[in-house]
């Protein structure tokens, strides 16, 4: 017996227990949790929920593929720090969400996915579009729920929001049978509150460990802070900065850490790992102390662990006890929320003179900057590095950049300098091609006033290009930069380096992306020389609607430097020796 005017008196049912249908309870609970936007796609098993939507103050974004819904919810969460919500029907709708759920899982993104399922009476009978989505998503969610009673919907959803955001965040799926959506129950938002959050019992920040960490920092000659995604997840930007400045310790970032420490800061060395600068990785190998903050020593960061930073003592500050000593054995573990731990540690940290080590690092840069492609003069070629560099300059680094996966992703990380957290959104852990466009849509909904750029390869863009229609239907403005090299470039690079240049299945035919945009009613322009870059970027920015730029870049350029997978951090493939070159005038 649904009420008709829940939208008008939208808060009454949140304070007064009211009898609602399960479908209404879904929306009412989402409203109570502060949700304003849901990304989804309807179908038979979730129809009751969709039918009730118009009564609630929630905006539903109709996606073109459910993978888009989960990536949008993910992008929304990454940009805002709030839980993103995706919705899909049973069977194929639910399975299409999976790639996006796994992407969120590997990058610890708070997300709640709601799926419909067949009626509880036919569960387990292979009914039409029945699939065991809680079984399928078990290893790629923090937790999931199968709800088959109306009265369980609100508690399950509220619990899902708690789990998604607490501790190390992650995706949670709530699968609701159709009969549970159709039934009625008393909706009591307050009573549906989950049990008190139970922190992981193995969190431990001992006084002795804090003292030991402070002692290591005091005595270190060559310390480095390794800052990861946990810095922004825990909101510890200030604390990391204070630690670095007070003790004069240089900071290097993981891919997902970019933005958590200002790129322009004198102590920022930039990105570490597979495509980090050689001198950064060299410094890690030479360090006598690593202070790992909210990062997990991923293999893309360590290279072979046997030779990783063997001279260094290691302090690991991490919220997930299961990460301690997983990849790299550490000397001091401070297991807790990064910001809280640093708050406890900072009073024990005194000023320190770090100049000798900083000078050593600085001198080890050598000719790296000169060989940097961004400093090549304009020889008529268009390099992706140029595009990223110009994009950074022109936007003043103020945009949210959402990248796909491949070479362009690494060039973005190298040449777009992020000053603030949540300004780079990228799939690091799973490396999911097709992520950028939908995640950018999600980010735009989270931050409607921010300038949002998609940076995608010609390959990955085609994986989710159908979401261009979503952009048009939703009338949102984002800017799209396709780095079009005619190849699955990152794979081509591996083939060049490690498979004798056998370019098997990597050359790629694409549609004319500008025409594709046009077919959607989206403006676009192709760019093939560096001279055109700035003008094109400006036109995109000033256009009222979404604008697509198709950058026809050098086809067989590779990302340098590079640590081959499984090699040591100091065994990098350096940039090929271009002639020493002048800085291009507009780099200033």
């Amino acid at each position, binding site marked *: 017996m649904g009420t008709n005017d829940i939208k008008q008196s939208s808060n009454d049912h949140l304070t007064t227990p009211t009898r609602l249908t399960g479908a209404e309870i879904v929306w009412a609970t989402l409203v109570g949790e502060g949700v304003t936007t849901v990304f989804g796609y309807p179908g038979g098993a979730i129809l009751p929920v969709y039918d009730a939507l118009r009564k609630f103050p929630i905006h539903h974004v109709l996606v073109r593929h459910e993978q888009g819904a989960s990536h949008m919810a993910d992008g929304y969460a990454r940009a805002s720090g709030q839980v993103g919500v995706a919705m899909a029907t049973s069977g194929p709708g639910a399975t299409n969400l999976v790639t996006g759920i796994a992407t969120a899982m590997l990058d610890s993104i708070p997300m709640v996915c709601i799926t419909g399922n067949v009626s509880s009476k036919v569960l387990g009978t292979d009914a039409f579009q029945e699939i065991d989505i809680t079984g399928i998503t*078990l290893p790629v969610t923090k937790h999931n729920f*199968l709800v088959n009673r109306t009265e369980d919907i609100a508690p399950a959803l509220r619990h899902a929001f708690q789990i998604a955001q607490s501790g190390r965040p992650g995706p949670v799926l709530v699968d609701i049978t159709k009969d549970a959506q159709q039934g009625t129950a008393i909706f009591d938002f307050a009573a549906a509150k989950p049990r008190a959050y139970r922190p*992981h*019992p*193995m969190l431990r920040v001992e006084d002795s460990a804090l003292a030991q960490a402070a002692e290591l920092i005091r005595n270190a000659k060559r310390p480095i802070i390794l800052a990861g995604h946990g810095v922004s997840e825990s909101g510890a930007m200030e604390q990391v900065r204070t630690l670095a400045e007070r003790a004069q310790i240089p900071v290097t970032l993981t891919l997902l850490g970019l933005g958590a420490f200002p790129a322009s800061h004198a102590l920022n060395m930039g990105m570490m790992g597979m495509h980090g600068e050689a001198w950064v990785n060299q410094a890690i190998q030479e360090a006598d102390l690593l202070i790992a903050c909210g990062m997990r020593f991923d293999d893309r960061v360590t290279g072979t662990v046997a030779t990783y930073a063997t001279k260094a003592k290691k302090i690991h500050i991490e919220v997930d*006890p*299961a990460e*301690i000593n997983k990849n790299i054995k550490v000397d001091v573990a401070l297991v807790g929320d990064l910001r809280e731990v640093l708050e406890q540690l900072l009073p024990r940290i005194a000023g320190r003179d770090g100049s000798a080590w900083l000078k050593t690092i600085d001198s080890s840069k050598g000719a790296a900057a000169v060989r940097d492609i961004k400093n090549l003069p304009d020889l008529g070629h268009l390099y992706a590095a140029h595009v990223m560099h110009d994009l950074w300059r022109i936007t003043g680094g103020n945009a949210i950049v959402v990248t796909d996966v491949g070479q362009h992703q690494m060039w973005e990380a190298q040449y777009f300098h992020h000053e603030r957290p949540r300004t780079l959104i990228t799939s690091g852990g799973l490396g999911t091609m097709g992520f950028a466009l939908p995640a950018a849509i999600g980010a735009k909904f989270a931050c409607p006033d921010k300038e949002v750029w998609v940076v995608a390869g010609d390959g990955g863009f085609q994986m989710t290009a159908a979401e261009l229609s979503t952009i048009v239907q939703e009338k949102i403005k984002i800017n799209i930069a396709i780095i079009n090299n005619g190849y699955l470039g990152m794979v081509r690079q591996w083939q060049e380096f490690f498979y004798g240049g056998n370019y098997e299945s990597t050359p790629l035919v694409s549609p004319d992306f500008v025409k594709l945009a046009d077919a959607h009613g989206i403006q676009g322009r192709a760019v093939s020389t560096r001279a055109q870059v700035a003008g094109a970027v400006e036109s995109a920015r000033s256009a009222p609607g979404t604008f697509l730029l198709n950058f026809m870049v050098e086809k067989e350029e590779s990302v340098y430097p590079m640590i081959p997978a499984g090699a040591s951090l100091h065994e990098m493939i350096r940039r090929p020796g271009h002639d020493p070159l002048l800085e291009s005038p507009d780099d200033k």
Partner: protein
Amino acid sequence: MLHTFVAYVEDLPGVLTRVASLFRRLNINIISLTVGRSERPGLSRLTLVCEASAEAGHRIRASLYKLENVVDVDDIAGAPAVTRELALIKVAATPRNRSQIFDLVEVFRARIVDLTSESLMIEMTGVESKIEGLIEVLREDEGRILEICRSGKLTMRRGHHTSGVLKAMGAKTEDNADADNEPAEIAKERAVVEPE
């Protein structure tokens, strides 16, 4: 090395899958797993034995705790504990050769719990090696063993300490393989010798 975990989990559908799935994901083979009701209402208690490196214990315990339905996890490691297994063994035996088996059962302190003209069933409780010993002797006669059913291991710490008590005392249960960190009362109990 062999790790033994005792865990309290919520008694809900699918919880066992979550536990088993974790071990599958970590590529660790579960050697023995027993689950049943516990003294805590709504919670099942499981004993899980697996083979993994010594360092893996910490991560397994931490990962178990990350499962939403897992309430308590105790890594028994080297702590003093009692471990038992139950086996039911059906053997072919006619009235003429029964007495030989009766003698065996006597020696192994097992029990006969069913008897027909062609077979009998032995119930045996004990440590794994004892059960294995009985099975080995029975195997000496080819074709004698008709069926074996084993429960897997049940483990309980000695003394009055439970994982819940250890937690209340603020003790570092996950480090108990490391004698330095062991609560004194527990260390004392290492002296207790298993009576068998």
